[in-house]
């Protein structure tokens, strides 16, 4: 009995161990060799530990940023980073095990729905499913769900999103790509459809509707070539300007012997380092589980339509990606200044979301409303994808998250479903 107690109290409480055990079980079920089972389990555990280390670095930098921002601007400045939310939920909030199990449950529900209904979409973007699992777990936990219920509800909602989002996007994707055998698997779809709707309303119609693709645009953004460099391009000025506003007197109390602006610069780099480490951890963590799932899913649903990450659409409408990126950035900057007027937190712009979500949204806007639709729709999209995460800030704050909010709007929509529907329903009964 004491051995069982020891296992329960000391081993299974460690999220990294539980996650490694889940991976081990999966590898054994796939009849992998002993060597593969051991290396796969250890890699998964290592992935979790690396992810946690990345999270600690991010949190350190965000705590500093929170202090100088509040001092400098007398309000809360929130950095949109789903990585930061995932890291804090898995690590600081101790929800790692539940998130990992929900992650698996989403896969299972995705397969079940695709197998037994006419919607044959299998969501192949593993990282996006991890973000979805994070949000359903965090908000399920906040709504009062625990244990098996937390995981099953999260898995079901995530699974429904994994099928419904590609299904909702498919009529557009079919027109964009001219085929029906590939779908879009990116949890920003609510935003895409929103932009398509706005563009349809305000965009060009009939003969007046001209496609962005007829224009000649400069095709490349050199500063976006590297994920981490593009993060730095935003974070560094943000930190330094904020430190300058906070003033030398206050900022020096946090920077020790280092010059306060230099310290801000180093802290901004530190944030990027944290994201780098965290994503390296995510890759290790998912490296074993995701290919196995995909193999199982594709065999159980032989006529599956694979839902791929957003770059799948870029080749079909490259100019719209550029227009979408620029207009979404403009929209999110407008939202950054407008939202605090209405008592919401200031959400700082995120370059990567603007590029991937904005770029893809641009393709949708151009499809339904041509150039005019893509431009106006893009700005409104930028505002929309900044507004939704702003609505979560109060909940995140009350749960102890530091200065961050989620990005991908579908995961935010799932979170709002918990906050506005499931939570109140649970409290009512």
């Amino acid at each position, binding site marked *: 009995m004491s051995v069982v107690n020891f296992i329960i109290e000391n081993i299974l409480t460690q999220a990294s161990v539980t996650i490694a055990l889940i991976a081990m079980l999966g590898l054994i079920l796939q009849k992998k060799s002993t060597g593969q089972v051991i290396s796969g389990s250890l890699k998964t555990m290592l992935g979790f530990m690396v992810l946690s280390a990345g999270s600690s670095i991010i949190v350190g930098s965000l705590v500093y940023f929170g202090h100088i921002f509040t001092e400098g601007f007398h309000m809360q400045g929130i950095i949109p980073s789903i990585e930061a939310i995932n890291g804090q939920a898995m690590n600081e909030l101790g929800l790692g095990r539940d998130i990992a199990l929900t992650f698996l449950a989403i896969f299972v529900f995705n397969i079940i729905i695709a197998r037994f209904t*006419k*919607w044959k*979409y299998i969501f*192949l973007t593993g990282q996006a499913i991890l973000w979805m699992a994070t949000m359903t777990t965090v908000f399920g936990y906040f709504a009062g769900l625990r244990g098996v219920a937390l995981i099953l509800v999260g898995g079901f909602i995530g699974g429904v999103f994994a099928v*419904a989002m*590609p*299904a*909702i996007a*498919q*009529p557009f994707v*079919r027109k964009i*790509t001219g*085929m*029906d*055998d*590939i779908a879009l698997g990116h949890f920003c779809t609510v935003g895409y459809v929103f932009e398509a709707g706005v563009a349809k309303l305000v965009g060009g119609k009939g003969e007046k509707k001209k496609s962005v693709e007829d224009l000649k645009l400069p*095709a*490349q*953004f*050199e500063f*976006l*070539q*590297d994920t981490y460099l593009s993060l730095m391009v935003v974070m560094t000025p943000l930190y330094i300007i904020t430190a300058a506003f906070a003033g030398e007197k206050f900022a020096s109390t946090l920077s020790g012997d280092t010059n306060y602006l230099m310290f801000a610069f180093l802290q901004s780099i530190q944030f990027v380092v944290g994201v780098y480490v965290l994503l390296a951890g995510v890759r290790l963590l998912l490296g074993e589980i995701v*290919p196995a799932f*995909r*193999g199982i899913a*594709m*065999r159980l649903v*032989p*006529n*599956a339509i*694979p839902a*791929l*990450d957003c*770059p*799948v659409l*870029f*080749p*079909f409408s*490259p100019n719209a*990606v550029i227009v979408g990126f620029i207009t979404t950035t403009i929209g999110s900057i407008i939202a950054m200044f407008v939202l605090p007027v209405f008592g919401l937190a200031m959400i700082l712009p995120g370059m990567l979301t603007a*590029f991937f979500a904005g*770029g893809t949204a641009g393709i949708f806007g151009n499809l339904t409303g041509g150039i005019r639709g893509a431009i106006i729709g893009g700005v409104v999209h930028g505002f929309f994808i900044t507004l939704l995460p702003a609505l979560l800030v109060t909940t995140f704050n009350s749960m102890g998250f530091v200065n961050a909010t989620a990005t991908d709007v579908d995961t935010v929509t799932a979170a709002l479903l918990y906050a506005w529907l499931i939570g109140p329903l649970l409290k009512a009964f």
Partner: protein
Amino acid sequence: MFGFGKKKPNEPKKETTEEVLLTVERKEELLRTISFKKEEVNQAAGEKQAKIYEEIGLAFNELGEEDHAIDSLEKSIQAKKSLGNGYKTLLKLYNKKRAEAAKVNNEELLQIYLKKMDQMMQVSKEVTRGVR
């Protein structure tokens, strides 16, 4: 609720008609193009070579010779990444091969094509972001 996610029943038919429509003359023309371009391709380099490989791949695809098409289109992307018709055709062919592997329960092949599709996403990201 999401009835619009349904496959259009007439779409697969369209593909078969396209294949049937390939006349003897067109076939010969494509074969001539392929043999001519194959000679040309060895003398070219970089972007030009990529373009010629793409043309060969697209010709093979039109002939229905998918493995040859994949081989040429992969060489095209290796020589120079681009997102033209070659890219789109290659992604479509990979997805077709992936579906065939799933049907015959060939896990190894299935993983190969899923991985290749992942790499295509990476290529799209890099080209759009201007990575050379």
